[in-house]
């Protein structure tokens, strides 16, 4: 890869990180019908799904972890950092795995639904560690997983359009 291409790639990674941060900030202002700890729209997952398609595996994790760290520093707290980190790492692991091994059989909808549900699973693991009670995490698990499926479908459709339209920009000769 030429140094010109490398610089281009770093710039786009930075742009995607800031986009994801802006999305995870603004989704807080959209009210949700139920109040369950950890339930959210997960709009930042649009960016993660796009990264899974256009970037290398290691770069996806770099983008996801930088986004979570920066969001926690600016608008989050220590607690929300651990929650997002567990959810983010688990969901990107799942999405990268499914995309690279079953690319032919899955669309972005399947990938983002899996990411959304795994994000909630990661958060529930942290919840059960912090509260020391698995029963609370298990009580919230079904409703959070249903929410993960619904928001995952929405995020998947949005990423499908996003990926289609940024195809022109993300042509790396790597």
């Amino acid at each position, binding site marked *: 890869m030429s140094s010109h291409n490398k610089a281009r790639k770093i710039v786009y990674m930075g742009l995607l990180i800031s986009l994801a941060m802006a999305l995870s900030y603004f989704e807080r202002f959209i009210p949700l019908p139920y109040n369950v700890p950890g339930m959210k729209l997960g709009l930042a997952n649009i960016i993660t799904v796009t990264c899974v398609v256009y970037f290398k595996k290691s770069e996806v994790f770099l983008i996801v972890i930088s986004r979570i760290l920066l969001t926690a520093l600016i608008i989050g707290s220590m607690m929300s950092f651990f929650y997002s980190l567990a959810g983010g790492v688990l969901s990107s692991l799942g999405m990268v795995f499914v995309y690279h091994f079953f690319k032919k059989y899955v669309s972005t909808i399947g990938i983002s639904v899996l990411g959304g549900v795994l994000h909630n699973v990661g958060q529930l693991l942290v919840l059960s560690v912090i509260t020391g009670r698995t029963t609370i995490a298990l*009580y919230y698990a079904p409703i959070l997983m249903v929410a993960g499926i619904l928001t995952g479908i929405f995020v998947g459709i949005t990423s499908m359009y996003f990926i289609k339209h940024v195809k022109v920009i993300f042509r790396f000769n790597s």
Partner: protein
Amino acid sequence: MKKGDLVIFALIIIGIISVYTYNGRQGEDDVLIVEVRIDGEVVDRFNLEDEVDKEYHTEYGFNHLHIHDGSASIIAADCRDQICVNTKDATKAREALVCVPNRFTVEIIGEGGDIDVISQ
């Protein structure tokens, strides 16, 4: 939508159903206990039928627990998201109120004659 998407959906739905049935597996319980935990440590246990109005000031923050007429709720807290205040009242076994930023959890636990039979 491709075939693999349906496989992912099916796996997740199986997961949801199995967790849901696991949660509902225990029978109805006779006595409902409200267990208050801070940072994983039990600090208080009340009967759900009691009248309780207690404020918890800890190093993590402040929560105001209110129990009356067999329903428990957090009526005030200094956390930023206010999810614990907006959660619907807990009235049944296994329902919970959680304040993540303040590490404050209220859980309803059923204690009855039949719970020991199940765990044996």
